């Protein structure tokens, strides 16, 4: 067998045959007669995708502004009740008299107040909760309020709160670092401190938002979703605290190392040296064990779809971290193949998968209806596993890595359209018919935007993997924009939606709605400015390189786009400060709303004693 060609080419051919691809995977493109950029399908596709986001955001903005204008002119027509009022007010006397006469006749009944006086009502028994008079703000649409859970283990609440607060802290710190790194593109001499130089800040930013913010937020929300959907308490609170401590320790130590110039090897997202990464891996292993044991102790027959994604993501996250750090196949270009695999799997198999699992719980929960299709969820899950795992090398198109590896990566990148479409359709169909509910919620807009970005960002990734698009966009700032569309537009927006759904229910304390609005709009507008600037600039940069212009020209032409990136980044950063305030307000601020006792309890307490003053009032008025 050793000398058969099968040994050499067996794997790629086998793959190709299995999937019905033409067997010429190794054949190199030789006649690429390229027309102008605007005739390239991939470029056109990319523009269509961007249009979706811009139009979506613009539509949302226009409808808000229109509502605002309508609201400020005639508050009474804001809703159906208002329109009814208006009709009634405009009736002629004759019509009015006729209606009143008819109604009096139809509705004649004793008023029930014949024996009482005309004094204002007192609710001395506490039957009516949350009375708010004059809630209509002229400027803001009042959102639905949410009721707290009444059956939560307070110790679990504390654990989840700790996870979310740590995550939000790393978000604020990590994006402050990212913002400052962005400022350095505009003003490279803003400081000359070794620890604050761009080359050190960049990995600090990426790793802190990856392992500190996103990972902790996901696992923290997972500690709620897994016990809830399996109808059983979390297996071990103690393990939960261990995973929090280990991951925090990893981020703290890793940041300290990078500040000191100790970098694992410069490979993206594995800049932490192995002892530090090991802390993170053990933290995720403990979390996995906890999730797994909770699922094992479930009281339901099957385990809900969220658990597939969460169990899958944690186990895949562990495997890919181990593969990324084992040394035996990482000399020479072995390092590069592993790097492509790791940096892509980290995003796709850990962050994206886990977050989708959370979506399958929090989206139906906040819409108060089941997910549209279980089958689409099954399809999306397994195709995610099969396709996503194979596309890491698309970060190294045209590199000296084997050509067949690049082709496989491109083919399956395009294949990713299947799980992405399945997921998007599933989420959007769940949204269908709930427009009013989205408008009335402060968490659903985050989830909706996250779904839109999920479609656009993932589709964009598929297009970016093609060979032609690599000519224009590889190595440019376009990639930076893409990673922000995905890790920020998809993952962070979805996580915010989940957090704004869950956090108010933990203690019954809701955020100030105007501030949630500030968070949403600053993050969205900032992100759009950020990615648009870098995509336009990145395209111009790639075209400049293709035209063979002097390299420095591509640096000079980026200046305005880097400035716009910094401006967009400033808005994003401000949004994070507001988010942090909102979260602290919900989880630590003020007094928690006391658990509401059922009405009959307060009646049963002492009905006589409370009835007496009322009787006294009545007597006095006679």
């Amino acid at each position, binding site marked *: 067998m050793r000398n058969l060609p099968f040994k050499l080419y067996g*794997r790629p051919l086998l*793959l190709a045959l299995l999937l019905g691809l033409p067997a010429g995977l190794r054949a*190199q*493109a030789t006649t690429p007669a*390229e027309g102008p950029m605007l005739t390239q399908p991939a470029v056109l596709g990319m523009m269509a995708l961007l249009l979706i986001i811009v139009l979506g955001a613009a539509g949302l903005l226009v409808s808000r502004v229109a509502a605002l204008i309508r609201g400020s002119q005639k508050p009474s027509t804001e809703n159906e009740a208002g329109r009814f009022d208006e009709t009634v007010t405009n009736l002629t006397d004759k019509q009015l008299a006729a209606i009143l006469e008819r109604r009096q006749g139809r509705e004649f009944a004793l008023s029930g107040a014949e024996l009482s006086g005309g004094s204002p009502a007192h609710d001395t028994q506490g039957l009516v909760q949350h009375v708010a008079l004059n809630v209509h703000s002229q400027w803001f649409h009042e959102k639905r309020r949410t009721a707290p859970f009444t059956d939560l283990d307070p110790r679990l609440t504390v654990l989840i709160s700790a996870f979310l607060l740590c995550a939000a802290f790393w978000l604020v710190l990590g994006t402050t670092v990212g913002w400052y790194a962005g400022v*350095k593109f505009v003003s*490279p*001499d803003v400081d*000359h*401190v*070794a620890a604050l130089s*761009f*080359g*050190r800040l960049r*990995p600090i930013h990426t790793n802190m938002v990856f392992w500190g913010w996103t990972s902790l937020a996901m696992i923290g929300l997972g500690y709620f979703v897994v016990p809830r959907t399996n109808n059983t308490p979390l297996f071990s609170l103690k393990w939960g605290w261990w995973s929090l401590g280990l991951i925090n320790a990893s981020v703290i130590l890793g940041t300290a190392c990078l500040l000191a*110039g*100790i*970098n694992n*090897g*410069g490979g993206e997202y*594995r800049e932490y040296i*192995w002892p530090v990464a090991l802390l993170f891996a053990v933290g995720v292993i403990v979390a996995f064990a906890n999730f797994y044991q909770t699922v*094992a102790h479930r009281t339901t027959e*099957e*385990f809900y779809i969220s658990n597939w994604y969460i*169990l899958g993501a944690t*186990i*895949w996250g562990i*495997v890919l971290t181990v593969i990324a750090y084992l*040394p035996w196949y990482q*000399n*020479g*270009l*072995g*390092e*590069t*193949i592993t*790097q492509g695999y790791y940096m892509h*799997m980290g995003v796709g*198999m850990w962050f994206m998968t886990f977050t989708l699992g959370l979506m399958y719980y929090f989206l139906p929960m906040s819409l108060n209806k089941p997910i549209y299709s279980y089958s689409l969820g099954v399809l999306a899950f397994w195709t995610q596993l*099969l396709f996503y*795992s*194979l596309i890491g*090398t698309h970060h190294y*198109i*045209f*590199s*000296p890595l*084997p050509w067949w590896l690049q082709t*496989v990566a491109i083919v399956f990148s395009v294949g990713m359209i299947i799980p992405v479409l399945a997921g998007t359709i599933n989420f959007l169909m769940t949204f269908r018919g709930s427009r009013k509910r989205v408008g009335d919620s402060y968490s659903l807009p985050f989830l909706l935007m996250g779904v839109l970005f999920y479609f656009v960002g993932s589709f964009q990734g598929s297009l970016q993997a093609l060979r032609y698009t690599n*000519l224009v966009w590889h*190595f440019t700032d376009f*990639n930076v924009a893409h990673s922000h569309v995905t890790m920020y537009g998809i993952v962070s927006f979805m996580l915010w939606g989940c957090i704004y759904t869950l956090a108010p229910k933990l203690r019954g304390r809701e955020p100030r709605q105007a501030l949630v609005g500030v968070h949403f709009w600053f993050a969205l507008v900032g992100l759009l400015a950020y990615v648009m600037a870098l995509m336009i600039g990145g395209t111009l940069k790639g075209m400049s390189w293709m035209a*063979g*212009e*002097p*390299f*420095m020209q591509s*640096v*000079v032409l980026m200046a305005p786009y880097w400035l716009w990136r910094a401006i967009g980044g400033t808005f994003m950063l401000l949004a994070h400060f507001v988010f942090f305030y909102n979260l602290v307000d919900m989880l630590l601020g003020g007094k928690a709303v006391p658990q509401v006792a059922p009405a009959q309890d307060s009646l049963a307490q002492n009905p006589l004693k409370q009835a007496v003053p009322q009787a006294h009032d009545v007597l006095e008025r006679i």
Partner: protein
Amino acid sequence: MMSWNVYSNHRLFVGIVFGVFVFLSVLIAVQPAARIQRENAPLPTAVALTTEQQAGLRVFIGEGCVACHTQQVRNIDMDKMWGGRPAVAADYAWRQRLDVWRATPSTLGSERTGPDLTEVGVRQPSDLWHLLHLYQPRSVVKESIMPAFPWLFRDSVAGTPAGLALYIPAAYREPGAHTVVPTRRAQQLVAYLMSLKQAALPTGQVAPAFLYVKPPKAAVAAGLVASDAAPAIDGGALYATNCQACHQATGEGLKGAFPPLKGSPVVNNADATLMVNIILQGYDARAEYGVMPPFGSRLTDAEIAAIVSHERSSWGNSAAPVTADFVKKLRALVKPVAAL
């Protein structure tokens, strides 16, 4: 009784998602990585990094230089400017773990915010230029946004060899610094950078082809290029790419590092022989200035002629242009010498 429904048997479910993912990972990452490591050795013509250069690589990684600088010449036409041939796996075969704590350096990179460094040792062979550039990039490349690395330098103290002192233009000197001297780490980093060049492929091995070579006809048809027969070579653009880093956009050079071309007797000489020869063969005859690399193998006759003509007619210089034939003749004279 055991259930075979993966959604009600958590052991089976976890076993499958674990097993399938490990299988795919081995197939697509671990096995190809192990194979490419096993099947490639450094090219026989490649020179191994010295201890000094190895130390420089560690500085390079620690300072995060790979965030902006790639080291891969892709097999596409637009990457020709970074090296003579597309990179092959053997070019990277020497890379190993840095030490027990740190992994193999990820030098291929993923962003090209700054230039590719595959051949920076050839393109920029002057250590003086590298040191100035590291101390303050904008002192040599005005539009650069690279971070300055003043912490790799220190103030001269008694006993420092005087030869190491850098001449920094006053505008770019750190406040309080008097005589700037590179630290050991700066020297190591520069040693590493200057070691970067593509090794020649052994005879018989054909370099991979550059793809996506621009077909001139199609470009003309699409209206992208003027339909004149041979597009004129832009000497100014070539100057910006190849010469400007040292001699500056103003042609004034940098005092104490790179000689001015503006008003230079060599440049303005009616006979351009010496000037063209310096460009073809390089120049290191004047102790007060850095080394000039030879460009004979990097530029064509027409390109050199365009650059020379540009330099002889810019910044107030007013000497006659030279032709490609003139360069060709001189190159023919140079060649036998180089063959020795």
